[in-house]
């Protein structure tokens, strides 16, 4: 039973989603327990995956017993296990958070919400674990389509924002499909491991190089890398609370992971170093994303929108780390760290921001006066995450920046060091504004309805947020202590990168 975990981790949420659709139709109360059941199975399977990788190293799983490269295979290596654990845990926490907020925001559609939510998780876990290019496309669309529908269930502009997201996202998926087609024409294979072995002889081929460009642009759209980000702020802002939490953390990070997987597992380091030296351009694009994202964030008064722009800047951080990976001994360490760090921080921030909306329907930062006293714990979670992101040691943001600066110095990219410092200053500007209004300004406190006492969100929403807030410091300490360095080293050597961090 235990060695079937790669199949179980994808099938469990899928089956749960079907059950939720049929049973939830009759009884709405069943939807949430079923979803939690499915997600708990995912969390356990992810733990088994981590354990198996740590003990026996990378493993593979053949679906239906078909030998790769003909059959579809699931591959579990260190990075896969790491992402499986991250996404299933975030999915679980976001689900706990979602229960109350969905009951308030979408009272008629509870079971449909959970059906789509579980489909989204199925797609994400599938993207992470699959070892087949076309299978990845299908699961990418499973995740994206349920994502569009979930975003559209929000209020105000949500359907329009979701339609934009859908059209732009479909262009991205089509580009990825074209890239697969080119690779298939050149090699006749769709299996990632097989492609990795077949491609080196064909690196000179224009077809393969074009395939790389198509795939990169396709994913750049999906992860909202700077010039291709236009769908993202509206989608994050108008989506229902629980959806904002999950798409800003698990979904965004999974797509980044897929890009890393294809760059380093399919095309490998040799290709990007010798044949198509695009990483300079990627670094610059990421640097622009960091600065522009932060500047836009300063201009926003809508808290969710500000966080959305901040996400664009943070995706820039991850892509900058990916871009620096081939030219420094740290390899992918900063990128992998920031995938976790940003998921934890942004999850916490969106949980807090949506908590303010849940209780007082407050979107605008300028109306936050006195919130620090009315919702002390939610505000505390927000502040923990904000401090961690700005880079207060030992928060996770500090660790990311420390490693990124080290990588940039090693790669002699002094401009990127300046970019990281500048973005830190910009982050201080936009987060300080929130903290200042919440705690220090008191003159307009009377705006908040319902007396002067503490008026917190329900515990099921508060605890996940606070938990992530605390995690954002715990993980900082864990990263600094070096407990996980052998693990990070294993990820890097798996891709033929760098040495020990």
């Amino acid at each position, binding site marked *: 039973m235990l060695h079937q975990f790669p199949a179980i981790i994808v099938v469990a949420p899928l089956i749960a989603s079907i059950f939720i659709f049929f049973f939830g139709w009759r009884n709405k109360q069943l939807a949430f327990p079923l979803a939690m059941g499915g997600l708990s199975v995912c969390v356990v399977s992810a733990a088994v995956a981590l354990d198996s990788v740590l003990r026996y190293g990378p493993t593979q799983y053949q679906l239906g017993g078909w030998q790769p490269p003909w059959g579809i295979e699931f591959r579990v290596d260190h990075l896969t296990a790491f992402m499986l654990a991250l996404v299933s845990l975030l999915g679980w926490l976001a689900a706990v958070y979602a229960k109350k907020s969905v009951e308030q925001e979408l009272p008629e559609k509870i079971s449909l919400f959970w059906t789509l939510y579980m489909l989204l998780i199925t797609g994400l876990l599938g993207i992470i674990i699959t070892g087949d290019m*076309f299978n990845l*496309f*299908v699961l990418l*669309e499973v995740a994206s*389509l349920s994502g*569009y*529908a979930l975003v*559209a269930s929000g209020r105000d*502009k949500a*359907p*329009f924002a*979701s*339609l934009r997201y*859908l*059209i732009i996202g*479909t*262009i991205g*998926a*089509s580009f990825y*499909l*074209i890239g697969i*087609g080119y690779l*298939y*024409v050149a090699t006749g294979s*769709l299996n990632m491991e097989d492609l990795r072995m077949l491609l080196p002889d064909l690196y000179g081929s224009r077809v393969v190089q074009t395939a790389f460009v198509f795939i990169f642009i396709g994913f750049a759209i999906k992860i909202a890398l700077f010039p291709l980000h236009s769908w993202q702020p509206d989608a994050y802002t108008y989506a229902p609370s629980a959806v904002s939490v999950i798409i800003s953390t698990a979904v965004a990070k999974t797509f980044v992971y897929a890009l890393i997987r294809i760059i380093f597992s399919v095309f490998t380091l040799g290709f990007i170093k010798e044949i198509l030296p695009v990483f300079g351009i990627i670094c610059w694009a990421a640097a622009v994303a960091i600065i522009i994202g932060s500047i836009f964030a300063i201009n926003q008064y809508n808290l969710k929108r500000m966080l959305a722009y901040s996400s664009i800047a943070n995706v820039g951080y991850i892509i900058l780390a990916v871009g620096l990976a081939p030219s420094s001994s740290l390899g992918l360490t900063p990128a992998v760290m920031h995938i976790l760090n940003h998921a934890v921080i942004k999850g916490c921030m969106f949980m807090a921001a949506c908590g303010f909306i849940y209780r007082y329907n407050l979107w605008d930062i300028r109306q936050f006066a006195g919130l620090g006293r009315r919702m002390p714990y939610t505000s505390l979670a927000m502040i923990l995450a904000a401090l961690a992101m700005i880079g207060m040691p030992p928060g996770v943001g500090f660790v990311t920046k420390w490693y990124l600066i080290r990588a940039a110095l090693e790669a002699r990219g002094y401009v990127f060091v300046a970019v990281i410092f500048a973005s830190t200053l910009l982050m201080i500007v936009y987060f300080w504004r929130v903290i200042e209004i919440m705690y220090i300004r008191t003159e307009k406190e009377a705006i908040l309805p319902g007396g002067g006492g503490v008026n917190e969100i329900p515990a099921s929403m508060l605890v996940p947020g606070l938990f992530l807030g605390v995690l954002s410091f715990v993980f900082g300490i864990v990263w600094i202590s070096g407990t996980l360095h052998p693990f990070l080293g294993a990820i890097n050597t798996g891709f033929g990168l760098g040495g020990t961090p």
Partner: protein
Amino acid sequence: MEVLLDVLISRVNYWVYIVLMMIGLYGIIAKKNLVKKIIGMNILQTAVILFFISIGAKKNATIPIIEHGHDAAHTAVTATHYINPLPHVLMLTAIVVAVATLGVALTLVIKVHQQYHTLEENEILERIREA
């Protein structure tokens, strides 16, 4: 001239796919009507599907069905006699994805129309700005 003709005619399937893809992208970018945008999106997806279909084709090859398959195990099957079925099978899945995308897109268009009573993008943006 001959080289040009060769490039155009011998790879006509790629040209068709590129032209269709550009029409699709043009529709998405230039048209203001949301339904026309979605039609553009669908043309783009169809272009990719046709590209995949065309790469399976071979000269002088037939459909990949082995006659009397059950007792043909000892007669060798020559791959060049049959067109490559794999891209076609992949596209069955891609068509399903495209249909699902179209369905979600049209649903969203209906919701947008209920909300703003128009499908012209500029009018919708105007209404959003007014609100």
